[in-house]
């Protein structure tokens, strides 16, 4: 045991373990009964116990092992209370004891992810389930990311967990033949987790808790499935973003849009690795969604080298992307490229064809709309849109950046500064 720490330090230690190990711990606790909801309850109780005990006893040297033991005891107590344990109890006990964490060679999370991506689970809930169960993101936030009502999302998640517990799904990595079918949901979840960490969940304390986890999982899948191009595409995409991590805030913590970042701050090693992955992936000859998105990042990265953003290339890749995986984000990205390339009216029309019910609360849509309106010379429109965007922004640095843009837009007498595009490509 370390020396007793301050309440604050203990809180942070517990939170850090919870954030970085949540999925691993849930995976361990779920393996036997496949009862995710029970595992989550047991782990929350263990975390509460940790917050009570650690300030007194000190943070244990292996907080994960402590939490697992505490949660397992709760699961066992509950099993006893329900009178489920029978003659098999000693054997169950032995197996539970074998399931202590084994350090880093551990791919429990991967098995759990593929379990959540099982074809017997409703396709719409597979990715949200992975986000909640494996990566510990709460249902409300997942609902927001997927643009659905929080209550509807919670219900779907609860139903899916009951199904995993009762329907008898196999808890193991799928056979090679079944892998590709389930891969899509797993890659989507990894990328969604990366996006959540990138946008706001990873704080200063734990700058890469979720983004690092997402990259780690993608590396694992690339190793596991070397013949599949899309995991490489996804890994490349995330590495391109991670390479710019330090450049997206200035010395005062202010948000710096992509086109104003200092390329000298970009991590060259990550970029080189990403370019290599993208090239290897391209050899498979099937250009999927993540390869398209990585290619878009690659074009942005080349701007400082060539001195100009290759808008024609971007337009082509966005067309490909929309052809393969149409999405609101892709449509917004393409509209901005169309506007930048000199046709803001067409871009505005494109943005306005998107279903209002889905984009009304979607910050990037308002940011793009403001930018495109400004390029079209529609200043009032641009001002109104940026106001909506500001109201929807939770990240303080991005908010400050948008407020600055708003002031410039509102104050500009006719001359519109077109140099301030946002990071909509991310």
């Amino acid at each position: 045991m370390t020396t007793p720490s301050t309440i604050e330090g203990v809180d942070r230690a517990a939170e850090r373990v919870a954030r970085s190990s949540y999925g691993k711990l849930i995976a361990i606790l779920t393996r036997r009964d496949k009862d995710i909801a029970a595992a989550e309850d047991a782990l929350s109780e263990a975390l509460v116990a940790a917050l009570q005990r650690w300030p007194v006893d000190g943070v244990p040297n292996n907080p994960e092992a402590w939490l697992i033991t505490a949660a397992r005891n709760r699961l066992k107590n509950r099993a006893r209370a329900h009178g489920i344990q029978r003659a098999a109890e000693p054997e169950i006990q032995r197996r539970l004891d074998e399931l202590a964490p084994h350090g880093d060679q551990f791919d429990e999370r991967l098995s759990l992810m593929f379990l959540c991506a099982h074809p017997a689970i409703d396709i719409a809930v597979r990715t949200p389930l992975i986000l909640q169960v494996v990566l510990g993101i709460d249902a409300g936030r997942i609902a927001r990311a997927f643009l659905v009502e929080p209550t509807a999302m919670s219900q779907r998640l609860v139903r899916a967990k009951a199904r995993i517990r009762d329907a008898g799904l196999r808890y193991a990595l799928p056979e090679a033949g079944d892998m590709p079918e389930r891969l899509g949901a797993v890659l989507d979840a990894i990328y969604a987790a990366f996006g959540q960490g990138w946008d706001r969940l990873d704080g200063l304390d734990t700058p890469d808790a979720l983004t690092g986890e997402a990259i780690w999982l993608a590396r694992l899948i690339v190793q596991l499935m070397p013949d599949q191009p899309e995991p490489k595409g996804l890994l490349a995409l995330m590495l391109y973003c991670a390479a710019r991590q330090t450049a997206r805030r200035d010395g005062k913590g202010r948000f710096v849009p992509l086109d104003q970042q200092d390329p000298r701050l970009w991590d060259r090693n990550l970029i080189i690795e990403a370019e290599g992955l993208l090239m290897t992936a391209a050899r498979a000859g099937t250009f999927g969604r993540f390869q398209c998105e990585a290619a878009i990042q690659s074009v942005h990265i080349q701007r400082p080298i060539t001195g100009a953003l290759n808008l024609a290339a971007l337009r082509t890749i966005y067309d490909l992307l929309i052809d393969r995986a149409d999405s609101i984000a892709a449509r917004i990205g393409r509209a901005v490229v169309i506007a930048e390339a000199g046709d803001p009216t067409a871009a505005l029309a494109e943005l306005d064809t998107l279903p209002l019910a889905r984009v009304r609360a979607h910050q990037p849509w308002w940011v793009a709309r403001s930018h495109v309106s400004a390029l079209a010379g529609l200043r009032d429109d641009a001002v109104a849109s940026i106001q909506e965007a500001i109201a929807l922004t939770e990240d303080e640095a991005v908010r400050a950046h948008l407020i600055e843009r708003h002031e410039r837009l509102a104050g500009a007498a006719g001359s519109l500064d077109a140099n301030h595009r946002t990071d909509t490509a991310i």
Partner: protein
Amino acid sequence: MQFMLILRETHDDFARRADPAQSADYWGGWNAFIEAMAQSGIVVKGDGLQAPHTSTTVRVRDGNRTVEDGPFADTKEQLGGYFIVDVPDLDTAIDWAAKAPSARTASVEVRPVLPPMPSSQ
């Protein structure tokens, strides 16, 4: 764990059972499937059922008994038989379900069997 494979068949499937030109094919397919399952030792219990027109449906409402001819719903797929199999997981049960002849013409539903009630042990 135990799963029930609920085998549904189309009207055509039922008609093939007794059609001299097709019955050999029909029964050959089922026999091969049943034999494969029997050899793997997973079958707990299973039966084919007579065609739906032999069925009778009973309801009791407010104490009154009604007895009707045939299955109530006129659907394209009807229950043709069932198996209870004991396999490690749903994935294995699905693999077996996919081998049933009626999976290609109609459908096979795979449903976990409730574990026995504690009192009955």
